[in-house]
């Protein structure tokens, strides 16, 4: 079975400071892992995706995430937060080899960026 746990429902940072959004997953099979971002009243936008190539994945807008199999984690980071990063972030797992294309979403982490 697949599941995703986002460890923080809210994260607040000051502009220019690092961002860390934590995600742990459980998967019986090799997972594909994603981070999506949702700005207020908008749809979901893909930030980055891991599919068993490099364990450090670089995404858009300066975000990156590291796949750590031993820790079953896929934390999202950014060295320096920008006001425009304020949004809801979702960690998502999909089972590779699945014939169903089912995505399992975490509960989301609301990122607030203070000036």
């Amino acid at each position, binding site marked *: 079975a697949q599941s995703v746990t986002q460890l923080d429902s809210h994260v607040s940072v000051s502009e220019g400071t690092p961002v860390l959004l934590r995600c742990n997953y459980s998967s019986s099979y090799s997972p594909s892992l994603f981070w999506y971002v949702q700005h207020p*009243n908008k*749809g*979901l936008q893909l930030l980055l995706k891991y599919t068993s190539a490099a364990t450090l994945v670089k995404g858009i807008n300066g975000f990156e995430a590291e796949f750590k199999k031993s820790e079953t984690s896929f934390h999202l980071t950014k060295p320096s937060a920008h006001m425009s990063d304020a949004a809801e972030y*979702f960690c998502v797992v999909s089972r590779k080899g*699945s014939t169903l*294309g*089912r*995505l399992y979403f975490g*509960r*989301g982490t609301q990122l607030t960026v203070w000036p």
Partner: protein
Amino acid sequence: DTAVSQTPKYLVTQMGNDKSIKCEQNLGHDTMYWYKQDSKKFLKIMFSYNNKELIINETVPNRFSPKSPDKAHLNLHINSLELGDSAVYFCASSYGLVGETQYFGPGTRLLVL
């Protein structure tokens, strides 16, 4: 230019009414999905279609009926709307099914009064 589009963007209606939400994608994908996002922002899949064939049908009341006239379109019809149907409904599409990136539409905000 919009890759995945949905109409309408907002939908306010009375309990008991029947309504439809339309979704179109111009990405050439063969798989389309409907998700429901509740008031706590939790996203859960409702349906998926691959090449117009129903693949995923989650535990959704049979008042919800998806229809895929072709690979580029997936519509959602809801009969006898209830208060609990109020949510944001997202359409998404992808190439195939196997761990592929899904591209989401802007969402349809449904409010049932």
